[in-house]
């Protein structure tokens, strides 16, 4: 069996000045455990540039590539672009409908990322019908899944040995169990799951569902992990993803 590519992940760290010092000491020397660190959105509590600085300062301690998507909290103050720019300047890879590859000792890791959006799941989802506001809500949910699919299609051209889909919103409802069912349409989007199932993904990682559970599967059987910090209750988890084909 080929060696695994070691993917560390956490989400929903919701950083602000009051949480400075909480992550940095735990991320030092992470290269001994993992080849890359993925952060599944809600990097900040209120979406301010100040909080993004706190995130950058804390996650600077990681000695592996740090790849993130933004979450809904990171959009709250309308500073999402400034946050993305600051993080990029600080050496963090911000994915939004984009992908990147990282060469590791065990092969090439490809990660495609998108924040995602609400929509819901089969039988209990928003419909593209009625008022313009409803159509805009639904349309954005559908669009964001198309954005993920295109990013994954592009990534396939790079022939990664392991492909990971990173989002903030959940692509399946398995990992929402524990959250009140009434809010599931605001927590995830089954179209994201469809995009994952159609593009050869080995692992899907998301956050946002603080009261959900860690493990789930897409309809086609791709492992999904909810790494929201309140769920994993650790600074990060490491997934040792074994490539499909030997090198």
């Amino acid at each position, binding site marked *: 069996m080929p060696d*695994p590519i070691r993917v560390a992940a956490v989400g929903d760290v919701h950083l602000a000045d009051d949480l400075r010092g909480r992550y940095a000491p735990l991320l030092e020397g992470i290269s001994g*455990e993992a080849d890359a660190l993925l952060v599944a959105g809600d990097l900040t509590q209120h979406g301010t540039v100040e909080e993004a600085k706190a995130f950058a300062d804390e996650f600077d301690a990681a000695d592996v590539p740090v790849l993130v998507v933004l979450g809904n909290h990171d959009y709250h103050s309308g500073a999402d672009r400034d946050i993305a720019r600051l993080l990029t300047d600080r050496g963090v890879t911000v994915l939004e409908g984009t992908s990147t590859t990282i060469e590791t000792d065990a092969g090439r890791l490809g990660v495609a990322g998108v924040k995602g959006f609400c929509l819901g799941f089969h039988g209990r989802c928003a419909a593209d019908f009625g008022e313009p506001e409803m159509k805009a809500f639904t349309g954005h949910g559908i669009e964001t899944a198309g954005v993920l699919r295109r990013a994954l299609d592009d990534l396939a051209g790079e022939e990664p040995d392991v492909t990971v889909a990173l989002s903030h919103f959940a692509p399946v409802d398995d990992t929402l169990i524990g959250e009140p069912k009434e809010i599931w349409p605001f927590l995830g989007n089954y179209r994201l799951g469809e995009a994952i199932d159609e593009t050869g993904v080995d692992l899907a990682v998301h956050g946002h569902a603080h*009261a959900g559970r860690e493990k789930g599967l897409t309809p086609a059987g791709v492992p999904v992990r909810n790494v929201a*910090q309140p769920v994993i209750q650790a600074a990060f988890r*490491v997934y*040792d*993803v*074994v490539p499909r084909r030997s090198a």
Partner: protein
Amino acid sequence: MNEQLARDLERDIASDPRTNELGIRLQVRGERLVVSGEVASEERRATVLEVVREHDTGLEIVDHIMLSAEPGPGGPDHEQIDPPQRS
């Protein structure tokens, strides 16, 4: 009406820029207003309670807010993810 008050307060705690906490639940139990849910720091707990107190409910505020477990040191959990086995 108690139910309404609790939902209104939850909405305020979610939308107040000082808190923006989406995971706080409120329940009225007799003369008491129970605040529960999870926040990441003592400071955030204090701010949530401050926002609740600003609403003159006349109820005794009971703090059942939990602090989320601070990520501790020690080795991380590794989980092996295998490719699909086709027989």
